[in-house]
């Protein structure tokens, strides 16, 4: 883990945090709404929470794209899943939600899985020559 470059660490952290916050606000904006008409749908989609959620997910997409330019997909996907465990812990510590034994087991498995994948090489495919060298 100490071998991770700061760039990889920074980008992975932003990817995790923006997806946690983005999904939280989306869920807040869409929960318990069952729009029946098209205008009801449009109203739900332009509500402030949904717009905030979508903006955070745009940040998520851009940072993830950059991360994928040097890291394996099969490294990025499991490692950035730590957001799920983080969401559950946030619910406990900030919202006082109860975490059942099953959910604790889930948090433990995700954490172990993330730690295991982090011991593997970030990249296993060969980089192409940089564009500058091709000119």
């Amino acid at each position, binding site marked *: 883990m100490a071998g991770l470059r700061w760039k990889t660490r920074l980008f992975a952290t932003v990817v995790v945090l923006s997806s946690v916050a983005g999904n939280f606000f*989306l*869920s807040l904006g*869409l*929960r318990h*709404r*069952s*729009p029946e008409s098209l205008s009801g749908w449009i109203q739900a989609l332009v509500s402030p929470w949904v717009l905030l959620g979508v903006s955070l*997910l745009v940040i998520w*997409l851009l940072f993830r*794209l*950059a991360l*994928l*330019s*040097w890291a*394996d*997909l*099969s*490294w990025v*996907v*499991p490692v950035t*899943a730590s957001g*799920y*465990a983080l969401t*559950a812990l946030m619910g406990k510590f900030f919202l006082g939600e109860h975490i059942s034994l*099953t*959910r604790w*087991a*889930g*948090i*433990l*498995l*995700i*954490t*172990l*899985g*993330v*730690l*295991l*994948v982090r*011991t*593997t090489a970030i990249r*296993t*495919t060969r*980089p*192409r020559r*940089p*564009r500058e060298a091709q000119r």
Partner: protein
Amino acid sequence: MSWLLVTLVSLTASLGDALQTLGMKLHGEIHDFRPAALGNAFRRLIRSWHLGLSLVLLAISFGAFLALLSIADLSFAVPATALEYVSTTLLAQYLLGEKVNWRRWAGAGLVACGVVLLGL
């Protein structure tokens, strides 16, 4: 209906992710984070079909996920789409040629099981 949406969410997301990774790897590592350089990289990336198609697939996946959230709880939607970890790892190995060793498979499997447990 819910499971149909779950399948659609997972498959389009995995395929979109694989195409996105392919597009980014063909572009090469992003080193220069100055706005002008990022703008250039962005313009180059937009012109490659990989990224365009991946965004279409991810938009379909996102739309299907929103539809799923409107008919099901988040506590069903999130664990059900854990299927994605398996399909994405398979695509990474066979389509992108990444070397998925046992530690990476085990880690992805643990994460998928953990996501399912979290949502139960």
